[in-house]
């Protein structure tokens, strides 16, 4: 550090960093680096832990009541996984907050500039955030669904059926839905940059609009709801309802929403100054 010899340009290759590989030779930068960085950032603040705890709590309460109501009202027997699938309408907001904060907190603190200095190719930052949030949401969604199935079994009191294949399928479907919600959220958050904006859009899209459409009733409005993210998601998470789409189609509809949000978010991120 205290070297005081002046060096000419010809010696610059001797500089520790001049060769771009003096440090970290053989380890990943690029997309792998961006993902590793996002992963470190995510778990070094408290928000994701709180979101996971909130998600589990909501699952427990929701599925308990769902099953209890099914027993009390003597609903027809349904797959036990439906309790977990139905809880997604609420639990998705834990995922929304978790995914949104990874983006909006960087804009509110200005640390997004740091992120873009570390990974200047912006689509990599965008993709890394979507991947990390999506992966965490998949695992969290799956875990919540397992908990939901376990919690619901008792209170159903025989009003539910358990079939291993169906249950596993439903648990994974909930995980996939939450992963897609996380990806959708990252895109919306990059487009709006502010938590208030992102949250209003997502609350409207995932909860407000479906409530209004189904509340007003009618086939047309229900058909519209079927192509909204949660409406479509419900069709591939729940089993035994008369769904207008095949599960794969329903999943593709949600994926299309997520992709659309990604494209808008990426457009804003690339175009605007950080």
């Amino acid at each position, binding site marked *: 550090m205290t070297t005081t010899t002046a*060096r000419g340009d010809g010696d610059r290759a001797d500089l520790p960093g001049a060769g771009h590989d003096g440090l970290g030779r053989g380890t990943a930068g690029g997309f792998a680096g961006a993902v590793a960085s996002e992963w470190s950032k995510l778990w070094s603040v408290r928000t994701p832990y709180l979101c996971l705890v909130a998600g589990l709590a909501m699952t427990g309460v929701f599925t308990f009541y769902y099953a209890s109501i099914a027993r009390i009202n003597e609903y027809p027997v349904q797959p036990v996984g439906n309790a977990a699938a139905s809880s997604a309408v609420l639990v998705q907001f834990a995922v929304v907050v978790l995914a949104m904060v990874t983006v909006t907190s960087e804009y509110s*603190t200005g640390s997004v500039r740091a992120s873009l200095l570390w990974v200047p190719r912006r689509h990599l930052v965008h993709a890394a955030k979507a991947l990390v949030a999506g992966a965490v949401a998949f695992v969290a969604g799956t875990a919540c669904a397992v908990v939901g199935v376990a919690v619901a079994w008792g209170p159903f009191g025989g009003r539910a059926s358990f079939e291993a294949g169906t249950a596993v399928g439903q648990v994974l479907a909930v995980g996939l839905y939450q992963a897609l919600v996380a990806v959708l959220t990252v895109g919306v958050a990059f487009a709006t940059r502010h938590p208030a904006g992102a949250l209003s859009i997502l609350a409207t899209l995932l909860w407000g609009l479906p409530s209004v459409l189904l509340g007003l009733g009618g086939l047309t409005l229900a058909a519209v709801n079927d192509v909204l993210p949660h409406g479509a998601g419900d069709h591939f998470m729940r089993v035994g309802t008369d769904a207008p789409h095949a599960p794969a189609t329903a999943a593709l509809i949600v994926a299309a929403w997520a992709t659309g949000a990604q494209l808008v978010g990426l457009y804003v991120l690339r175009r605007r*100054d950080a």
Partner: protein
Amino acid sequence: MITLRGLTKRYGATHAVDDLTLDVRAGLVTGFLGPNGAGKSTTMRMILGLDHPTRGRALIAGRPYAALRRPLCAVGAMLDARAIHPARSGRAHLVAQARANGIPVRRVDEVLELVGLAKAARRPAGTYSLGMSGRLGVAGALLGDPPVLVLDEPVNGLDPDGVRWIRRLVRDRAAEGRTVFLSSHLMSEMQLTADHLVVIGRGRLLRDTSMRDFLAAASPASARASVPDPEERATLARRLMAAGGVSVETSESGELTVEGRSAAEIGDLAHHCGVRLHGLGDVRVSLEQAYMDLTARSVEYATGGTDTSAVRSTDTGTARAAGKGERR
């Protein structure tokens, strides 16, 4: 080496940065000066790929920042030391930074030690003082051991010890052959730190010159002589003014302030005329004074103008003329 070619940033009708062309050379500390709103930070953000230039290019070692494979190992930057997540610890921030470029995590502890932040490393960054945030920012800039450093106001909030530390740090880096480009509002500090100066006003390049030339251009030879005898004082003043381009002011306490002659020349003349002197010395203009004189005409908020046409003065005569004006 940082290369700017016709770099321009426009926000609507305002030219934040207007056609900047310059090279920031390796092996020197280049100071970046300009009034608030002159476009310094915008320029630095464009160099670092955060803002998109309206026109022109900013290159580091011949490549745009976004094209660098491991940018942290090519350029160390510190822009806003406060722009960190307040709940994340300083160390976690640097670990995320290191991972982004495949830098080993042990290097994080090295730089934390280097900037004197090892003890506070696991505290949330929101609890840091401005000085500690500054040190964290410097740690981030040094993380990849880069050959180019871009530092925006690095001494902001640092105590005198920290200011000296930064000065030594950037001087050492430049001596190793690295490129150092830093902005600061502390002129006295800049005078001690920088070899070369880039001065902008209203987004336009006003000077790109060595510190020595900048000071020399801003201040014509000028000196003070203390002459106790009133008659001899008048003689000396008359003899000095006999030559053109010299102005002499006499104060009540018997001191002559001479512009256009150095102390050595006055001493020789006094000796020649047999004039007794009690004191004699060159008057050196400080960087602060030279800078104020140069930018006086281009300070955006002082003039209240919105057009950029006023900043056209790139001849040294303007600065010289301004230098003779009243000083507050």
